[in-house]
């Protein structure tokens, strides 16, 4: 049984303009110790997905359907208290802005000890010992000193390390990291990512990494989920998606990277922009921007315009695209052959 099993998740926001569907029919699983990347542009629903896993969706948002099974328990139906327990203990979260987690008026040590004592019955001295130990694990120089410092006295990279130490504090099973390095410089980003990777491997912690950066995903994760306009459109092993993406959007996203074109030449851009969630087109949400949704006569294909594509299996990937379905049906690929 998978550690986390999200199925048919449907999240909506009741706004004054009407109801906006932020997540539609999102399903995925996460095994113990697995590292999963969720990729998408801003507004694709990847952060909503992260918040929903911890059932942190606040009004006006709500979960309209689907389930989130964690070790067989449905997080959408748990009482706040039980949920609170899971959140700190077994699933922890790393935000983009470290100051969202750190309280500016408490020292690093006070926050870590408080967190430990809230979830476990231990003495302050023991808690301090554990906190010190975790700070050492994230390679913070002179950890004793850091425990008595306030968050604002630390640099951005140091703060994000402390956030990771706090996330590891209670030895969780899953860490959900929402754009953990977007606000950081490249050299610091590389350090934090390799640290996160090392710790997850060492402690067998599962990681859900939410990012817009395909380079980061390709270096850290084993499996990738690509989201567009609130839906998962492709998922599969990261290497396969990076090297041989099936969905036209994923292909476009990868080909648009400057690395993929020879210097000085035009980049392969995707026309248009992702529609706002309130204006998601019917059928395949990507069809207005898709180069493959037109038929030989130059008309938009009817199925792309009207039907939401179902997932088809191509190689080890699951892809939601009418064109890929046709290709697969015409020329079936045995699962596993592509890997």
């Amino acid at each position: 049984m998978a550690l986390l099993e999200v199925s048919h998740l449907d999240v909506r926001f009741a706004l004054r303009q009407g109801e906006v569907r932020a997540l539609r029919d999102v399903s995925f699983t996460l095994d113990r110790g697995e590292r999963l990347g969720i990729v998408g542009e801003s507004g694709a629903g990847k952060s909503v997905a992260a918040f929903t896993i911890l059932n942190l969706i606040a009004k006006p948002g709500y979960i309209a359907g689907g389930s989130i099974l964690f070790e067989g328990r449905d997080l959408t139906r748990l009482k706040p208290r039980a949920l609170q327990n899971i959140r700190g203990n077994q699933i922890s979260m790393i935000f983009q802005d470290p100051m969202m987690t750190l309280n500016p008026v408490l020292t690093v040590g006070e926050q870590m000890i408080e967190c430990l004592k809230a979830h476990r019955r231990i003495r302050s001295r023991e808690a301090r010992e554990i906190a010190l130990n975790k700070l050492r694990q994230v390679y913070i120089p002179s950890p004793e000193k850091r425990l008595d410092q306030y968050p604002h006295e630390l640099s951005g990279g140091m703060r994000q390390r402390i956030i990771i130490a706090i996330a590891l504090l209670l030895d969780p099973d899953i860490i959900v990291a929402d754009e953990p390095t977007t606000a950081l410089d490249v050299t610091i980003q590389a350090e934090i990512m390799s640290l996160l990777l090392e710790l997850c491997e060492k402690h067998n912690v599962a990681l859900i990494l939410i990012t817009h950066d395909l380079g980061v995903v390709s270096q850290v994760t084993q499996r990738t989920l690509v989201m567009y306009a609130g839906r998962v459109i492709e998922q599969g092993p990261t290497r396969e998606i990076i090297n041989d993406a099936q969905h036209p959007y994923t292909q476009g996203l990868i080909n648009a990277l400057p690395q993929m074109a020879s210097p000085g030449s035009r980049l392969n851009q995707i026309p248009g922009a992702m529609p706002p969630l309130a204006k998601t087109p019917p059928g395949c949400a990507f069809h207005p921007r898709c180069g493959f949704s037109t038929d030989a006569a130059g008309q938009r294909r009817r199925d792309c315009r009207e039907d939401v594509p179902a997932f088809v299996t191509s190689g080890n990937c699951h892809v939601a695209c009418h064109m890929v379905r046709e290709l697969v049906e015409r020329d079936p690929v045995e699962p596993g052959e592509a890997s």
Partner: protein
Amino acid sequence: MSNATTTTPPTHWARFRDSYLFYSFKHDWIAQVCFVIFVIMVSAALLAPWLASINPYDLSQVFILDSELPPFWIDGSDAKYPLGTDALGRDMLSTILYGARVSLIIGFGAVILQALIGVTFGLLAGYLGGRVDAFLMRLADIQLSFSTLMVAIIVGAVFKATFGGATYSEHAVLLLVLIIGLAEWPQYARTVRASVLAERSKEYVDAARVMGFRAKRIMFRHILPNTLSPIFVISTVQIANAIISEAALSFLGLGMPETQPSLGSLIKSGFDYLQSGSWWITLLPGAVLVVLVLVINLLGDWLRDVMNPRLYKG
């Protein structure tokens, strides 16, 4: 290239109808009630010369024999005077209408003056910074350390001593507008300066500077329109404050003379008769003042909630 932007742009009315301002007004009954009361009070006050049965300034229309008649729900009232009469025999309803008119004129006039001075100084201080900023803000601090009452007492006394009581009565409205306007401009200056500082760091101001536009153009054409929301919000508070200041001054005998009463001087003139049982002379204008100020303040609260940039982006 465009998603859903190829349709024709909406008209001004359509923009307003779809705006958050209008939406929240439709969903807030307190704001609606306040707005209705405010509009009724303002229009009644402005139309006083046509609505009132007598002109309280014109002594020939006043019958001293009808003095101290109670309002209609008390025995001994006269149908001619629905809200009774005061000690001089003036119709209470008419005097209140005229009084509210004077109060509102002074309130709005003073706020316009405050806004003119305060917005200009705030823009200059916030945009130019440095010494100009330091000088204007210290000036504001000094101004705030004089209370409105103190300024009014001194200016009023000097004016009366120089030009005599008759001239004073003639120009009392103008003088009160000047006093209250000059005393409270720092509120505007501070608010505007704070939002100018926030706007100045935005890139559209840099873009305007890179275009070579002169400081005056950037201040008034680019920054000022973007600081209108806070100006709007404090204006409501300031109008209420100005009306209260005027009432307080008049109550102390430093404001409007009894011959052209404002709400404040009406309250004062009735105060002596409170003991003798004619409570309506002072309490009715008092109630009108309270309702007027309350309604303006509630509208201001609603406006502040709506225009709070944290809640409302756009």
